[in-house]
């Protein structure tokens, strides 16, 4: 069972994502902030990470930055989900190694699941 880590401080959103992913057949862990997210990446060793940007303690950029510095996670696909959607933000996230960037309000869960599927080994 493929492992997906959801790093999201909003409980409703976190629940919606994890519920849908579980229903779609994934093993899901959640983290409520950036620091926890990093810990879970190390301990849980997810195959795909869904990462929010605006979070307490450590924001999404910081998380991306640290993961980028650690060669262990070189091939870990990280999909950024944020309700900010400016070009500058998207570019910054992608420069820090994010594979995709979606504005939450503009993406359907079904599409997201399909996207995750593409990053997993067949």
């Amino acid at each position, binding site marked *: 069972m493929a492992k997906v880590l959801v790093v999201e401080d909003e409980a409703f*959103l976190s629940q919606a*994502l994890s519920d*849908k992913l579980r229903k779609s057949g994934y093993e899901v862990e959640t983290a409520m902030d950036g620091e926890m997210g990093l810990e879970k990446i190390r301990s849980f060793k997810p195959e795909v990470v869904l990462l929010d940007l605006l979070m307490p303690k450590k924001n999404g950029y910081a998380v991306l930055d640290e993961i980028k510095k650690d060669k262990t996670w070189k091939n870990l696909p990280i999909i950024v989900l944020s*309700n900010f959607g400016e070009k500058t933000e998207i570019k910054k996230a992608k420069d820090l190694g994010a594979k995709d960037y979606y504005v*939450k*309000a*503009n993406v359907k*869960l*079904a599409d997201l699941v399909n996207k995750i599927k593409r990053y997993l080994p067949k």
Partner: protein
Amino acid sequence: MAKFFSSSLNTRFLYYMVAIAGCVIAIFVYMIISTFTGSLKTEVQERVNATLETFSIVFSESHDQILTDVESLARGQDFVQTVNTLAAEKDISKLEELSEYVALKKQIKNTQEAQGLSFVDIVDSKGNILVGSENIKVGQKISLKGYVENVIKNKTTGKSVEIITQEEMQAHSEELAKKALINRIPTEKSKQGWRTQEDEHDGLVMAAGTVIINDGEVVGAIIGGVLLNNNNEILDRLVQRGRGIASLYLYDARAATTQQYQNINKRAIGTLASEEIVNTVYITQKDFSGRAFELDEWYLVAYQPIRNFENEVIGSIARGIPESEVTSSIGSIRLRFLIIGVGMFVLIYFITRFLVKSITRPLKELAINANRLSHGNLDIDIQPPEREDEIGDLTHSFINMKDKLHEYYTKLEALVAERTQELRQKVRDLEIARHSIEDEKNKSESILQNVGDGVLALNKDKEFIACNEAASDLLDYRIPEIIGKDLDAIINLKYIKLTDKNKDVNPIIKAIETGNVVATGTGEFAVVTKKKKGIPVTITATPLKDPSGEIHGGVVVIKDVTKEQEIDKMKSEFVSVASHQLRTPLSASKWFLEMLMDGDAGKLNKEQSEYIDHITKSNERMIALVNDLLNVSRIESGTIAIEPILTDIDGMIESVIFELAHIIKQKKQKTVFEKLSGGTPQIKIDPKLIRQVFQNLISNAVKYTPEGGKLGVRVSRDAKFLTFEVFDTGVGIPKSQQSKVFKKFFRADNVITLQTEGTGLGLYVAKSVVEASGGKIWFKSEEGRGTNFFFTLPIAGSTRREGEKTLI
């Protein structure tokens, strides 16, 4: 000389006239004297020649007398008988003893003495002396260089001048020989070596002879002669009558001469004739007439050769008048002419002086008066002249001129006074005007300086002529650095806004060139200051026109809108954060609704399903509203990026239609896509932005077209642009509201009542995007019949622009 020429007209004129007169007189006198001298000399020479004629006649007369005497003797019958007898005597030694001899001797002696002859000889037919007047011996030969033999031989009677030798003279008497002696003396002017000095012993005799014939047979001859050497008898007679000099020459030496000169009688025997005379008279044997040096004077002379019976020149007769006599008369003439000349000169001097004075004196007076006049003395009193000549006219004219001048001057003074008064008034008026202008200026300046915005004024060459402190502060230039500089040197504008299609146009230049006021909006321009700091500004450029409407500059008001920009930024940040916060619950709703719809929480019944769908639609509308608001905010912030890439627009249109397919199907609408033949060419545009345009336009068409209606897209092109037409058969836009179509949050009245969803931001966004991409957007619409939206894109593609934002 300078003094001479600078002296008065009077003197100069006088000098000129006198100089001319002097020259004329001198030439005149010279010509008269030279002519007179020449003619005088000629005349005197003629006189000399005439006296020579006289000389010749007198000489000939004397000679004739001798001939007459001897002939009269020879014709006497007794005489002939006596000579015949004596000639018949054989023994000549006994002749002296004959009584006939003694008687004859006495007779001829008497004749000789009575007639003043030097000798009288009777010779026989052989030329030997029979009897002589002197103590000559019988039988002695007398020849006179062959003359005697010639007379006998030719049986002639004739006179001749002949040479008698010293021996022949001594045969007659020693006295005769002594009398004939001449010492030759060269004249002062004779050349050296001309005839060495020697004594002349020959005698020159004036001789006459005739044969004595008895019974047709020559028995002898009688010869009479006068010795001319030292014989002055004829010469004295000549000179007494005609003065001057008269000479007889034996050969070239004076044998006799008489000179009457300055009442002194002079003899000059033996002096020689000049070389010139010798050449003429003795060598070429011609008469001489001309100038010669005689004794001790220059003479005008005439010479005539004397020839013997053999026609040889043996002497000459000469006559002359001393040249000094001529020249003395010339001298007196010269003196007379000189006196006349000087007299004329003096006369001319005084006449000229008088004339000159009569002309120049009034002129001088005029000059003095003119001088006074020139010094402004117009009150001089000039007496009108009595004369009626040109000078009189001139003086009259001068008086006229003076009177006129006086008149004009008086008028002028009055005029000047009047004008001065006017001028003073004008100066006062101007002073007042200047004060009020200065007040105005001070007021204006104080207003200008106290305006918070930068104000600058330009002339028509776009050079700054004024600016206020605020402008100086804003631009970081000091005021003196700005004045006189070109617009471009001071105001460096940077275009920062997305939407203005005239972004390359400098609003200040545009205002001055078009004559219209140009105002820019916030966020369109930033000005780069001296310190290279970009300050966002708004610019209001107003052309300055003179009353004729000609533009002679402009006024620029630059307002620093940094604060406004900051507020804008805060606004945009607020929108960003607000939209984020709005989106978060919306996205939670969206996802849970999706899961409910998908039946993740159990299967829904029909009613539940319908409700969930309504909630989903409302939620989506909220999301769309937030997205649109964000887009508007991005557009207005002016930081939208344009990233053109080669795009398949046909595919884009098809995909947009496809996305709307389920609604179109629901509304049973008919869609058309009229492509260009061969498809729309791929051009470089920002696909995200242009897609947004198609989405907005086509979704509007779908939204506002009732069920079963028709809508579509039509593509056309020209050389530069592609034109996209999105048309429908929908409700259309009311005419009254067509002008507001592209405004934010505009929604037509007729669509609001349709209760269709819509934010009123779509067309605003579309217009912004099309214009930023280098195109234009417009529409045609008729209420109830449909709407056609058109927009163009340049085939050359959109211009790339860096920016922080893009549309969603």
